[in-house]
């Protein structure tokens, strides 16, 4: 046990600044590394954006493609510069906040990001807002009710749902709710109605993932001495023990999975975006990689890296909020550093 540390207000502010500074340095390192790694990896891809732009052999034959002189276009969009020149100018642009222009459509990368981000963020937030309470509900249903049938069902459903391919669930939803019942549109991202089906698919998946970790966490906690022996001995009811004691402890693995889920929702919803024909970050990423559109891919990598760093920071804060020990430990660590 550490002794209480006397700390002045100025000291606290300094400590905070130091923590924030360290986090920011970490964030910059992550973005820089992600950018550099992606940049050099992309050059392994066969072909380049200019070749992707030329068109298909349906409209221009293979003999025509073989004869095309594309060097002028490569010069124009900067693809004939040396690898290092391209890398350094890309980095310089990044520092200025300029992500460059698409090598395919020549539009600013920030414009393209601005078009897809609102869609992706709306979908991610809506599905998270539903999946967190639903996940907790399922987890509680899987451990609390007296009826064994309810518990088994509630613990079976998440594992079953997680093992279904997302595209298949999406197509099934379209079949039921869009084509058969006509309640919601099957495609596009215009208006609230178009948000319902993709949100449902993703929210259910998130809820199932959350429920899985919560269920195993809750089971472990409910079996622990404090919950199985101490609390009942003190006269606490099962539900009280579950809510007041176990849920908090079981939430740590949940928080880790939550962080991962946010990442998945930002970059990995491409299947849902394709099935529901929505514009979004994931689809832009896949299309850009296929077209070897380096600048757009790098812009997306930067956005995703920043998002991951931010989410990780939020998860860290969440840990601290959940566990008072972490707060004390952090404070004492800072204090001992200050003393030294």
């Amino acid at each position, binding site marked *: 046990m550490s002794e209480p540390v006397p700390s002045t207000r100025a000291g606290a502010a300094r400590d905070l600044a130091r923590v924030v500074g360290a986090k920011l340095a970490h964030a910059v390192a992550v973005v820089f590394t992600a950018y550099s790694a992606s940049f050099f990896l992309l050059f392994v891809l066969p072909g380049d954006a200019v070749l*992707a732009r030329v068109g298909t052999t349906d409209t221009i034959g293979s003999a025509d493609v073989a004869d095309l002189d594309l060097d002028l276009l490569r010069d124009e969009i900067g693809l004939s510069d040396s690898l290092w020149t391209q890398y350094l100018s890309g980095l310089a642009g990044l520092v200025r906040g300029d992500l460059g222009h698409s090598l395919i459509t020549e539009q600013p990368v920030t414009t393209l990001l601005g078009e897809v981000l609102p869609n992706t963020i709306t979908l991610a937030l809506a599905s998270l807002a539903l999946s967190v309470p639903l996940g907790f509900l399922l987890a509680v249903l899987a451990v609390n009710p007296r009826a064994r049938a309810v518990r088994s069902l509630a613990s079976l459903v998440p594992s079953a749902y997680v093992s279904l391919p997302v595209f298949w669930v999406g197509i099934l939803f379209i079949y039921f709710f869009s084509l058969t019942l006509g309640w919601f549109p099957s495609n*596009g991202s215009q208006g609230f109605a178009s948000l319902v089906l993709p949100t449902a698919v993703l929210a259910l998946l998130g809820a199932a993932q959350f429920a899985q970790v919560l269920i195993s966490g809750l089971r472990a906690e409910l079996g622990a001495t404090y919950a199985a022996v101490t609390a009942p001995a003190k006269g606490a009811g099962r539900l009280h023990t579950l809510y007041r004691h176990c849920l908090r402890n079981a939430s740590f693995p949940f928080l880790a999975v939550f962080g991962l889920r946010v990442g998945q929702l930002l970059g990995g919803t491409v299947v849902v975006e394709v099935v529901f*024909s929505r514009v979004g970050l994931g689809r832009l990423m896949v299309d850009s990689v296929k077209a070897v559109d380096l600048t757009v891919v790098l812009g997306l990598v930067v956005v995703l890296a920043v998002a991951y760093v931010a989410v990780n920071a939020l998860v860290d804060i969440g840990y601290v909020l959940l566990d008072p020990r972490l707060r004390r430990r952090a404070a004492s660590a800072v204090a001992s550093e200050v003393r030294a």
Partner: protein
Amino acid sequence: MKRHLRDATGRVRLPRRATAALALFTSAGLVLSGCAAAGGGVQTVSSTPVKGGVLKYRAAGGGKSLDPATTTGYGLAVPLRGLVDSLVFNNPDGTFAPWLATKWEVNDNATRYAFTLRQDVTFSNGEKFDATAVRLSYQALRDGGAKYAVANQWIGALAQITTPDPHTVVFDLVKPNSSFLQAVSSTVLGVVAPATARLPFEKRQEGLGIIGSGPFVAAESRGEEGYTLVRRDDYAWAPEPAANRGAPYLDKIEVRNIQDNSIAAAELRSGGLDLLHNTEPADKTEFSTSRDITIRREPLPGSALGFAANTDVPGLDDVRVRRALALAVDRDAVLKRASAIDIAPKGAYTASNPYFTDQSDKIRTDVAAAERLLDEAGWRRGADGVRAKAGARLSLELVYSPSTISHEPNIAVVQSQWKAIGVELKFGSLTQAELNQRLQSGNYSFSWGSGTRPDADVLRSTYGGLDEELDEVFDQILAEPDIAARKALATRASEIVLDEAYYIPLYDFIQPLAYRNSTHLPLLEATHIPWLGDAWIDQQ
């Protein structure tokens, strides 16, 4: 479900929505049997056009660009045909009709094209259509260079565009290009307003920057998800073959870039779409017997689908090997795996190309002769069953883009047929960038020959540079503006391509439009793109 309907066969028929849903359900991986509604495929033709209505159209793989000059694929060009007009209209028989140009003159060797323009045409932003507008529209594409690779390839070597008076525009070409009129008639070379011509490339690719003189005007862009065109009420310069001289019948055309083919097909069945491009083989087969839906059964005009040989590759440099490979293909077996509506090839051009002649006697199967030819050429079977010569195995690779993936089961049939004569075939799809890289560097054995252009020149773009005699015929085609004379030359070109087995045709692929029978498309241009000014939808 309220009630069950009975069709002529006495079978219980489910309502349309349920049928659509069932079909989708099946394609989603669950097998339900005995529920598919069978129809006679009878199309009710109502002859009176109806004004009003929205045409809901889906094209595969659309981006957000509305620029006809960069939209070179068939499906994406269909709605844009309503946005921009062209100088001439290309009839399905290969002839040309007046449109924005009332008449035109071509010199004897197809190096000078002079168009006389209509004087009553305006662009939808109010700008006047005249010779200068045409010049600016074309000049913008020339200045863009490789950014408009297809457009410039079609235009050919342009020396200059002159405008002797406000209603005459003259194109002078450095080299003969008798395909120029066909190029001019295409959506890709549709005339845009000076305001659009002045835009830099990236501005043309976004939003509603494309202003044309067409019967429809771009009104709303939903980014990658699609866009909406609305009727232009003062439109009065339809192409000459059009029955409707004035404003189009349709109020709107709504273009939806639905990504997944089976979902799009289900939307067509349920009435969520009126017109659809790109269909999976299973849906094609089903549409061909549907009573609600018509699928066009004419192949897109161009060259038949098949393998185009790279004659620089060991083995394929020998005509005996190429002929053996062609003889070893049993097309009936391949067609059995293809959709029910694809048809056997009868030449190097598809049967719907205006320059097609039936050469089906040149497309034969004779496995014994194939084996003999390979033996003769010195390729002997090795221990692994694959023929080899001087240490090199007869292992060939076919390359194609992802749009060809639905053909893979049919290609696999060829693979097994060739395996039987000791030839290994590898195939796989590449990204567009990688495919073009391989084609440029010559690192492939076969490319997927699939040119779509209703013109004699479509063969040159794939088989140019292989053969001196063939190149000479191609040059003669380009220097010959007369359609009958071009057709004779095209027949000769197709003959050489098949005799020398530069090309191994598999089938005339049907990938055209499918539409609900309430949708009417009375006029098509030679590319098989419908003229939407005449299209209408029955109102219920």
